[in-house]
Each structure stands twice: as structure tokens, then as C-alpha cells.
């Protein structure tokens, strides 16, 4: 079994998107999501599409990587499209066959919804995963949420937990592959038999994996304590985040995008979702 973790992986680079402040990236991602859900008609979608394509170009990532990242969502997108095509009611059916009636509005609606799903995934992964290291992301999140620590929310601890969890995903995947190979060498069979048999076959993988995860957790805790880790209090940072001109500019562009979408919704009525 080969595990595909292309989706959600950081891609090395030095584009404008890579250099944006992670805090700004989190904020603009939220704004982008709001904008894409406000978009109501074809023209608003065209604007969003243009912006998303511009993002892809700006990131200087290969299109293959981005399309590969969309693969896991393809099924949901297609499923939604089919539902919309068959169940959307319009004025006049384009095709009427037995109980199936397909309307022009249904087709457009399906297209827009699929587009929305794909753009949503592309843009969010573009901001948050492809161009941002997990460490930068959790740092940004921690600082954005830091006001909450005033009311007693352990923001630093959550951020640290998230960093550690992300850090160990590749390690655990590698470990799983090793254990699987070891059990296969003893004749374990993961790919045949019924559901119960397959579920049982997982036991020899899960147990050693848990044991090693606990061992690693213990080792890590000891190592952190050896370096005098006592939580977030009084901790200084090597890389202090500073929002610069480009960060403000980008935020402005996203706000303008949102405003554009609202204006189009009001003044340019078209096929709406």
C-alpha cells in the first residue's frame, strides 16, 4: 500500500505567496471563503476564477501538483454536479426523458457549484499548505488567537500540540510502512478476505504503531524538558513575524475582491446560485 500525501503538503518556493505573513494568509483565507460563498452569479464567479488563476500563477507551483491535490475531492464534486443536474427545477426542460428532466439552470448551477468547490480547495491549500510550512502556520495561528489567552484559553499549548502532531505525520507513515513490511514478511495478508478478516489483519500493525507512538511521545517530552521547556510563558522567538507592505496590499486586494463580488451580485444579475 502506498500512501498518497501530496494533498496538504508544503512545496518549497520563494514566490510572493510563500513570503506572505502566515497571519495574513489565515485572515485572507477566511475572507476568500466568505467571498466565494457570496458570489451569486456567473460574473461574480468569473471574477473569483480570474483571481484564483492569478493566485496559481503567482505561487509558481507546477499545475500538476495543484491538479493532483484536487483528486481526492473530485468524487464529491462530481456527485454534487450529478445531483444538481437531475434535481434542479427550472422553467423549461432541455431534455425530458421518462421521469428525468434536465434544465438549463440545473446545468449552470451544477457547473458553478463544482467550480466553487474546486476553487475553494485550490485557494485554501494554496494559502495554507502549499506555500506555508506547518510551523509557520501554527505560529501564525497562535499569534492570531493570543488575545484569547487573556481569558484563560491555553493558546500556546494548543499550537504546540498542533505543531507536534503535524511534525509526526510523516514519521508515523514511515513507521507504518516498516511495520507492514515486517508483518508481511511473516505472511500477513492485508489485501484479501472479507471485512472482518481485513479488520483483524490490522491489529498486528496498530499495536506496534501505538506502542512506538507512546514511546516517541515519552522521548519527546523528556527531550523538551531537558531543554527547559515550560510552556509559552516568557518564550521569545527566533523568527518574529512582521507584516510588511505586501501583506497589507494583499489584504486590501482580497477586501476589494469581496466588495467586487457584492457589487456584481447587486448590479449585474445573471444566472444565480
Amino acid at each position, binding site marked *: 500500500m502506498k500512501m498518497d500525501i501530496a494533498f496538504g503538503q508544503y512545496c518549497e518556493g520563494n514566490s510572493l505567496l510563500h513570503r506572505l505573513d502566515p497571519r495574513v494568509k489565515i485572515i485572507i483565507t477566511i475572507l476568500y471563503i466568505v467571498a466565494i460563498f457570496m458570489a451569486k452569479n456567473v460574473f461574480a464567479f468569473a471574477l473569483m476564477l480570474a483571481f484564483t488563476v492569478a493566485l496559481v500563477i503567482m505561487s509558481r507551483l507546477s499545475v500538476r501538483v495543484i491538479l493532483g491535490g484536487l483528486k481526492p475531492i473530485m468524487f464529491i464534486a462530481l456527485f454534487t454536479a450529478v445531483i444538481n443536474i437531475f434535481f434542479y427545477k427550472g422553467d423549461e426542460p432541455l431534455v425530458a426523458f421518462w421521469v428525468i428532466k434536465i434544465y438549463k439552470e440545473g446545468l449552470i448551477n451544477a457547473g458553478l457549484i463544482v467550480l466553487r468547490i474546486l476553487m475553494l480547495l485550490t485557494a485554501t491549500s494554496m494559502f495554507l499548505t502549499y506555500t506555508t510550512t506547518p510551523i509557520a502556520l501554527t505560529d501564525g495561528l497562535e499569534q492570531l488567537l493570543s488575545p484569547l489567552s487573556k481569558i484563560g484559553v491555553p493558546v500556546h499549548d494548543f499550537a504546540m500540540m498542533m505543531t507536534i502532531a503535524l511534525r509526526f505525520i510523516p514519521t508515523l507513515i514511515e513507521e507504518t510502512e516498516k511495520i507492514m513490511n*515486517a508483518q*508481511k*514478511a*511473516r505472511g500477513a495478508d492485508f489485501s484479501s478476505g472479507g471485512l472482518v478478516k481485513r479488520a483483524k489483519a490490522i*491489529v*498486528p500493525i496498530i499495536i506496534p504503531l501505538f506502542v512506538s507512538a507512546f514511546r516517541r511521545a515519552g522521548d519527546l517530552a523528556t527531550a523538551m524538558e531537558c531543554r527547559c521547556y515550560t510552556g509559552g510563558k516568557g518564550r521569545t522567538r527566533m523568527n518574529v513575524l512582521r507584516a510588511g507592505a505586501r501583506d497589507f496590499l494583499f489584504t486590501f486586494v482580497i477586501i476589494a475582491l469581496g466588495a467586487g463580488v457584492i457589487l456584481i451580485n447587486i448590479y449585474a444579475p445573471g444566472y444565480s446560485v
Partner: protein
Amino acid sequence: MAELELSGVNYIYNKGTPYETHALKDINLKIGGGITGIIGHTGSGKSTLVQMFNGLVKPTSGTVKLDGEDIWEKKDRVREARFKAGLVMQYPEYQLFASTVYEDIAFGPRNMGLSEEEVDKRVRAAAAFSKLPPEAMARSPFDLSGGQKRRVALAGVIAMNPAFLVLDEPAAGLDPGGRRSILGGIKEFGKNSGTSVIIVSHSMEDMASYCDRIIVMASGRVIMDGNCSEVFSRYNELIGVGLDVPQVTRIASALSHRGLDIGRDVYTVGYAAGKLCEMLDGDVK
């Protein structure tokens, strides 16, 4: 005698991506009988090579034959290969999972579809190798010491009665006493059962003391193949690929430079000691 034959084997990782690596290049090998050592620097392809033997990794090109049969020719033959060429991976104690030592050792034989009687026989025979007292069979493998855990993991593979016992760094992370006892145990097992043993290691000392034949790998190729004296006499080439000769061989060579010639074919400490005693007329003894 069982025979393992690799012909024209190539293996390429991540083909077609920027991370493409040619891990094995045109490997032609015939192994059968005795104890064969495979040495090589990190990344020389030795671990990939041993995973070819039992069909864990499928060669990009070339054939792997066990007793004359291509293991990739038919679908169920790969599974047979797993039982014929028992592979003990690095740090095998991390794959223990069952609630008792007995159950863990029985995992392999049960996967072979043997009767409970036969499984029981094999587990007990293999447990004799791990030198655990009979009452320990009902204990959890997680309660054992590190060295004992490794023996249990080894017993789990031995219980499958493989024609080949393939071990990837069986002594890694053990102290000198643990090394000697595990490697000595393996050597004895091979001799008594007639199993062909293949050991991967990068310890020249272990290779010299336990192996009849040594295969040297460097950047995916077999660059040397022969007995201890054939391999260790090519000192400069070994250094060139980041390997070494046993320490005692270097000492012997330094001694001969200073006029005390105990020969160049000194590979184990015991042999060197004997030779020196002989030369010093047994005074030291």
C-alpha cells in the same frame, strides 16, 4: 539445498518524479548454503536488496528465483516466497504485537495455514532458540528486556522454518555481549538446521567472524563477492566506498610494517591472538 538466484535485477524508486533513485543496478547473484554477509555503506542498496529476496519489493526489471521458480510469475508464489525466505527486518522487536510471547511467535506459522499441532511444535522449537524459560511463553512480549524481545522477534521468523533466514542488521543497537550471543545463536541455528543464512551488516568484525562469503555493495551494485580473504585483501577499494577492514586486520598490517609479520590474512581477534602466541613461543599464554 535451496537456492536463491537474482538475474539482471534493477530497482528504481519514485520513477518519473524528481526524486527518482536507481537503488539497484543490474544485480546478478546466486546464494545457497552457509552464511552469506552483505555489507555496504548507508544507501548502498543492501536493505532494498534483501527485500527483493522475499518479494516485499518487486524489481523494476530482472527476475528473482527461489529454487528455480520466478517468485513474480504467479500471484500466490510471492506469498510462498515470504515463507521460504524468512526476513527479519531491522529492529524487529518493534513489530511484536500479540498478548503473549507464544502467540507472537505463532503468528507466522498460523499465516502459513498449518495445523495447531504443527504450530505448537514449531513455536516450541523456535522458542528454544530465544532461550526463554517455558513459563515466559505466557508473558507479554512487552515485559521482556530489549535483547529478549529481539530474540522473540527472531523466533517468530525461525518458526516458519524458512529455507533462507535473511537478517537485516540483527545486532544493531546491542552491546558486545548481546551481539555475540545473537550472532552466535544465528550461526549455530544455521549449522544445525541446514538453513542458509544471509546477514546484512556494516560491522566488518561481525562479517569476518561469522560469514563464509561476503558480498560488498556500493551505490546499488555488487562490487565484490568472495570469502573473507578475497574481500578484505582489497583494502583500498573498500576504503574507497566508505567501508573498512576489521580493526585487527589493520593492526596486523601495522605490525608487519614494523617487522612482526603475522600475515595479511588476519581477520578475527581470536586468530590474531593464536598467531601471535605461536610466534612468541607461547610465552604469553
